[in-house]
């Protein structure tokens, strides 16, 4: 017998559950501390996804009980839609089984591995089955099932099953016993819950820790994120092998209808253009397409002009919510700059990057490395910082250009700043199934770099603007003291009367200065005074516009002849003589003290070069809201007709 024969006898098929059982660190079960965090994370991510899919504002309860040394019972309960009894074993007891894998839309879970892996880990370390309690509606009974996984076969086994009373109308409750270690700190369950809450303000999360401490992360917004929509693949985002598989499995019998039915953004005319460009006859049967035909089609996809895929499959957090979340974390920050990039949709799965830079918060000291907050599809990433594209993108930037300290112009910069990166995608490319780090896909890295740079630029201009304004104010102070003394002294030497120096002062400052002053009083709100001083040598007609924080209520503007549009408060044009000043006042109610820390002011009517302490007013300044889902392209409509034919 040849050696090859000997070797052949050892060849065997391996079940996917066996594989992951052996390699459970790939799923985030490296050690007992982390296993506990991963279990909670998978359970909560699942619960959030389920609630959002069902249009329910999530209320999620997590409880961790220590049973004995290193043995914990984990409970995760949600108010989601529940799981019908027939599906329970598969959903929780079979790896690679789920509803979201074949959908092109943004969700936290994707692969149908996570929660089953938790069940498997529990049974492996405690020997206990997992208990699932679920109810799909008030008219349905609540079921309670105990289940295990036969890892050799990757098949669920039901150990026990009964109908029980449950006070909830709908929802799911998991009870899993497992080996673990409960910790606090930077990488902990508490931290995961806290950071999750930051970017999911619509969810109410409750955590009961082993020592009985109960923490509620309350709901801060009553609006569910815009529902994401499932889309079909876009021709420019697929690979040859995928096209071949789709052609083989389609129900369409003609190329044109195949293209229209199975892809997005392809109407009849586009489908025809594709066939023409590729040289593949329109009436060919997709099933019998050869490799070369497919290659020709692929080439045609690139040549024919097509509308970009819709982006309502994505759900970014939005700049306003990011700012609110970060403000909770960094109350005293000087600046929170945010960016939501446009979705990137050409080639590969659509994705969208958001970034924020926090500057000048007390809790981050100048000498240390900046804090990096990473999120993927609204899920915080706690581990593998160094291996994540968000980190490498940040490390590549020469932060010295943005006034932060950085050795050699690369690596993580130091300074009183924090950087947030959120990547939303229909399929986030994690480096492994433990979902700790996003893989180094060049396009994603580029987008992150662009987003972070945009925030960094804002930070730099904030730092520098602050410096400039401080300089100007200092100058004003000094000039107002020194010039009179020079005049006086020169008069003393010459033994004459002191000359009038006001015109000289105006000549020196040569600017219209805007100096805001904010005072906060408990129960009253923020009182804002904006002083506008004309330090030019001529009278000036000016109009002052200030930005009002979106969630505050405006009161008592003075003078009271005002306009208010898109959160912009504007006064009537007014003339200020050389050397004179005017004060504008208003109050903002309903905001916490730290929410109004500076005033974005604009002046209309004078040259930008003469303005100090404000921006020049430009009409096109766009109001800032959360990005709205894009309109469906008209070409999309054609499909319906076609299919009916």
């Amino acid at each position, binding site marked *: 017998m040849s050696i090859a024969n000997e070797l052949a006898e050892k060849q065997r098929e391996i079940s996917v559950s066996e594989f992951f059982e052996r390699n459970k660190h790939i799923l985030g079960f490296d050690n007992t501390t982390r296993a506990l965090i991963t279990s909670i994370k998978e359970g909560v991510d699942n619960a959030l996804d389920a609630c959002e899919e069902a249009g329910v504002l999530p209320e999620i309860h997590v409880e961790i009980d220590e049973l004995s040394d290193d043995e914990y019972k984990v409970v995760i309960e949600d108010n989601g839609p529940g799981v019908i009894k027939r599906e329970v074993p598969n959903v929780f007891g079979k790896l690679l089984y789920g509803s979201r894998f074949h959908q092109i839309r943004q969700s936290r879970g994707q692969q149908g591995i996570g929660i089953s892996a938790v069940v498997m880990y529990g049974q492996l370390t405690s020997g206990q089955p997992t208990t699932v309690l679920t109810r799909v509606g008030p008219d349905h009974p609540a079921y309670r099932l105990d289940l295990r996984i036969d890892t050799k076969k990757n098949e669920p086994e039901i150990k026990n099953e009964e109908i029980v009373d449950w006070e909830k109308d709908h929802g799911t409750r998991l009870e899993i016993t497992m080996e673990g270690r409960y910790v606090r700190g930077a990488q902990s369950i508490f931290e995961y819950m806290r950071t999750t809450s930051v970017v999911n303000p619509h969810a109410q999360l409750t955590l009961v820790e082993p020592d009985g401490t109960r923490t509620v992360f309350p709901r801060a917004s009553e609006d569910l994120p815009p529902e994401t929509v499932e889309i079909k693949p876009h021709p420019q985002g697929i690979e040859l092998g995928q096209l071949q598989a789709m052609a083989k499995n389609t129900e369409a019998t003609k190329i044109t209808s195949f293209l229209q039915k199975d892809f997005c953004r392809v109407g009849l005319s586009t489908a025809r253009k594709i066939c023409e460009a590729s040289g593949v006859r329109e009436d060919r049967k997709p099933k019998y397409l050869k490799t070369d035909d497919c290659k020709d089609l692929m080439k045609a996809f690139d040549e024919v002009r097509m509308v970009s895929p819709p982006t309502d499959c994505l759900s970014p957090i939005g700049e306003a919510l990011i700012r609110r979340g970060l403000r909770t974390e960094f109350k005293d920050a000087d600046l929170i700059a945010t960016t939501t990039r446009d979705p990137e949709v050409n080639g590969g799965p659509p994705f969208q990057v958001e970034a924020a830079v926090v500057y000048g918060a007390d809790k981050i000291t100048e000498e240390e490395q900046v804090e990096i907050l990473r999120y993927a599809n609204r899920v915080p990433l706690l581990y593998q910082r160094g291996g994540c594209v968000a980190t490498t993108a940040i490390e590549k930037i020469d932060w010295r250009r943005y006034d932060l300290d950085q050795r050699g112009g690369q690596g993580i910069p130091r300074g009183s700043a924090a950087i947030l990166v959120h990547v939303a995608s229909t399929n986030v490319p994690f480096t492994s199934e433990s979902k700790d780090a996003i893989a180094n896909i060049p396009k994603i890295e580029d987008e992150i770099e662009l987003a972070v740079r945009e925030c960094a630029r804002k930070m730099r201009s904030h730092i520098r603007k602050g410096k400039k304004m401080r300089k100007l104010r*200092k*100058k004003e102070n*000094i*000039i107002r*003291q*020194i*010039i009179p*003394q*020079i*005049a006086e*002294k*020169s*008069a*003393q*030497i*010459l033994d*004459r009367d002191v*000359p*009038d*120096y006001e*015109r*000289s002062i105006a*000549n*020196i400052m040569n600017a219209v200065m805007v100096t805001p002053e904010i005072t906060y009083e408990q129960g009253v709100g923020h009182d804002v005074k904006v002083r506008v001083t004309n330090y030019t*040598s001529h009278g000036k007609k000016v109009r002052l516009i200030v930005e009002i924080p979106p969630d505050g209520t405006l009161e008592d503007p003075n003078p009271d002849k005002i306009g208010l549009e898109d959160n912009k408060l504007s006064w009537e044009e007014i003339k200020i003589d050389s050397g004179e000043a005017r004060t504008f006042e208003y109050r903002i109610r309903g905001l916490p003290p730290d929410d109004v820390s500076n005033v974005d002011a604009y002046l209309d009517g004078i040259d930008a070069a003469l303005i100090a302490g404000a921006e020049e007013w430009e009409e096109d300044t766009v109001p800032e809201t959360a990005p709205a889902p894009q309109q469906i392209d008209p070409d999309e409509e054609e499909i319906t007709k076609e299919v009916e034919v």
Partner: protein
Amino acid sequence: MSAITEGEVGQATLEELYALAEGVYQDFTDGRVPELQLPVRSKSNIEFDEEHGVWKYGDSSSTRSAKKTNGAKMLLRTMYMINFIREMIETNKSSTLREMYYISEGWDLAKFAKQSESDKLAEDLEVVTELMREDFKLRPEEDGARILGDVTVEETTRTGDTRVINCRDDVGDAGYSVPFNVEEEKLSLRSIDCDFVIAIETGGMFDRLVENGFDESHRALLLHLKGQPARSTRRLLKRLNEEFGIPTVVFLDADPWSYRIFGSVAYGAIKTAHISEHLATPGAQYLGITPSDIVNYDLPTDALTEQDERALKSELSDPRFQDDRWQGEIEFQLELGKKSEQQALAKYGLDFVTDTYLPEKLGEMGVL
């Protein structure tokens, strides 16, 4: 020399200073931003003055305007300083630059942060008024020179007495200490019996020449420069050269800082280019140590530091050092990468400098 009384000098000074205050006052009256024009005081703005044979400031000027916070401060300080000088002239007092810096303690916003600021302003005032610091009754902390040799001077002391001193016979081996004011009204030069003046950088070398009796054996007037020479020292050298008409040779180390000393002695210093015709001795000759001497006499050396090299390169482009001899020597030194000191001649024994080196060099230069 015509006799000028102190009183006359004082009145003329005050006129110039009042003119400055007048300009500022007028600016206010006309609603202008007060300002002062000053020549640019750097290497790039010095020109050869054919009349006096020295280097002086050219036409480039900068404006010190009250538009900038610092400019405004300097204007205020100027007003205060003019006032202070007026008081000194009126009470017949003088003050060190350091004392003036402390006087400014009472000047409120015009108070100086460092003495270098007040020193600089005093220089600026010289530049603008074309007067000398001595006219403002300001003097430096620096020590005056010592001289030893057969020259007779007449000093008017603080008490108004005149005192006649021969700088070889009436003084000790340390020589005659030159007062900080060497203008005619303070010090007049009576007579001399020397063939040349030799200005020496270090005290050790001065004392060596004294110990070896070089003044007598070679009919020399020895002058100790004490490193970068004080204005009064340069002024005295100028007067010795002008009034007695004997050659002046300068004996320094072979390094860029010494060449700078020579430049300030012979051509005029950049900082004081506005009064070069009073301070520079155009006829002064560089005796040594030259970079060629380093090789010819095989002297102990140190390597040039980076700073040295930068300074040498800067001298290469200095308008005062454009003649072929200087260019050749400096380029040679850069190539050599070495520098040396005058006392390095001691390598050949304590008498080598007076018995061999100086006679050889002075012979070459045609002085002996």
